[in-house]
């Protein structure tokens, strides 16, 4: 039953995508209305700061860490077994 639900969702992934983008827009709008009492640092005052933080943080981490991995750290699973 649950499996069928997921299957259904998967088949309608295009719709899901649009809902997702709508949600992203919603978060930005919501930020306009959020109250900022206890601003702890400069970023708290900027609307959409966390949006940028989220997207660039995520992309940055993927690029940097995956890069490090490919360039240096990645080894076969039997590396220590020789």
């Amino acid at each position, binding site marked *: 039953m649950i499996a069928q639900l*997921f299957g259904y969702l998967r088949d309608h992934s295009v719709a899901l995508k649009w809902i997702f983008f709508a949600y992203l827009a919603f*978060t930005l709008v919501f930020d306009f*209305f959020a109250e900022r009492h206890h601003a702890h640092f400069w970023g708290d005052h900027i609307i959409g700061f966390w*949006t940028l*933080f989220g997207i660039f943080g995520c992309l940055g*981490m*993927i690029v940097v860490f995956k890069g490090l991995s490919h360039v240096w750290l*990645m080894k076969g699973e039997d590396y*220590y077994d020789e």
Partner: protein
Amino acid sequence: MMSNTIFMHPATYFLIGAVLLPFANRLKLQKVLLLVVPLLAFYQIHHLPASFGVCHFMGFELTFGRVDKLTYVFLHVFTLMALIGSIYGLHVKESGQHMAAFLYVAGSLGTTLAGDYLTLFIFWELMAFASVFLVWYRKRKRSIEAGYRYLLVHTTGGLILLAGIFLRYQNIHDLTFTRIAVDGATTADYLIMIGFMLNAAVPPIHAWLPDAYPEATVTGAVYMCAFTTKTAVYVLARGFPGFTALAILGAIMTVYGVAYAVIENDARRILAYHIVSQVGYMVCGVGIGTAMAVNGACAHAYAHILYKALLFMGVGSVLEMTGKSKLNELGGLYKYMPWSLVFTVIGGIAISGFPLTSGFISKSMIIAAAGVDHRVFIMLMLSLAAVGTFLSVGIKLPYFIWFGNDSGVKAKESYWNMQLGMFIAAFMCIFLGIYPEYLYKMLPYPVTWHPYTSYHLSETFQLLGFTGLGFYLMVKKLKPEPKSNLDLDWFYRKGARVFMWVASKPIGAANDWVGEVYRTVGYRFTLAVARALSWFDWEGIDWVLDGSAKGVVKGGDELRTLQTGKIQHYIGGAAVALCIVLIIVVLI
């Protein structure tokens, strides 16, 4: 009085339970015992006095039971976790695995309740030795080797801790386990801190965790993810709040762990690295040291045990039913194991801090505490780690196991007890998210922070949403490959090879050489001297003296022939000689 206090200690139940398990197994009552013991302990912790179990040993005063709010919140979650773990592992027939788990939990509870360093050390070692069996019981070659490394690392950490305890006792002649003032910290205290940090998997001494946890048994890993590291967090919170080094290391930990979680392939290794990351939040909170930060650390410890265990349970179910845990070998399981998926996803969103989950009300407290304390850099690092958390564990992990490309793996849904365990943990995750006061009441300091503010919600919505966008854009780059990544354990893993080689080859050879020296030089030399002396004896003395000398030499000759074979005569001769001597001694 003494017997009374023994039964007051919740660890006693687990110790007795461990001993009774093989018999319960024979009597087919194992499952009952597995449920009864944690329930009893969970009940017991609500009725503990502030101090109990004080006794004397070799001139030291040991305190087995010291309870305050800090102790209580950890005891609460430990016993609850023991119950969930027991339920999850009900299907395991081998009582040895359960014995190891019970002893492990007993060690953790004992450490948490310890009021002095010696008691703490004893239970600390118990935890290490019991948990290694949870790794060894997997019985694969890699598991046995990983368990061995785990044990050595923990023994070393334990001995560093012991050295610190000794030195501290040297300095102040007091073994009480209390808070250490930041300015008054001595080398001894730092050694103790390092011992604690090793168990908390603080880099650079963290590599044992991602090495051993993926190699543990399915049920063993569920226990292990909860106890060792969180007990270490407790002792750090008790002894070292406010040490800035911890705050900085904690912040680095959070990103370090998440970095590896993003690039790893094995599901349980991802989760293991992620433990490093999440414990980083707690260590950081302890390091910041303000009431809010310590509250946050405790709250996060509580919540983390539940959702990390939930994640391990979910991934463990997959491992149990398919025999696989590597992301590149899995995919498309949503058709076969949907409930495991649901529970894992709940764990994933809880750990990412979605509103209405336990992560939202706990992790963010630490971030807020950093902000209140004006530690901007730390705050940003912790937030970055939150991004990475959602990315690696919230999205990547469930996606590549249950969705992604269909790997063709077919499996049945996991057993009822595994699902029940997951359900309880998932329930708690949501429950705490909706009703955080349940947890907040247990925290050591009064809670002034409110999670459900519009700003916090907005921040969370943005972070999570746009991290999701990031994943969506880069999903191809994140495709898992059957590779593993090097970490700091390279030094001692490669080093160990050298170490063992030196032990068996050069030093062994040197030792043999010395033995050879004995044989070639010493032995032959001695015999040559003996021969020369016997010549001297024969010719020289015989020539100088007579009679008795000849008798001595002849006797020696006789003795030589005796020595060549007739053992009975030899023994008889020796015995007679000895008896004669003793008779003389006694009678004269």
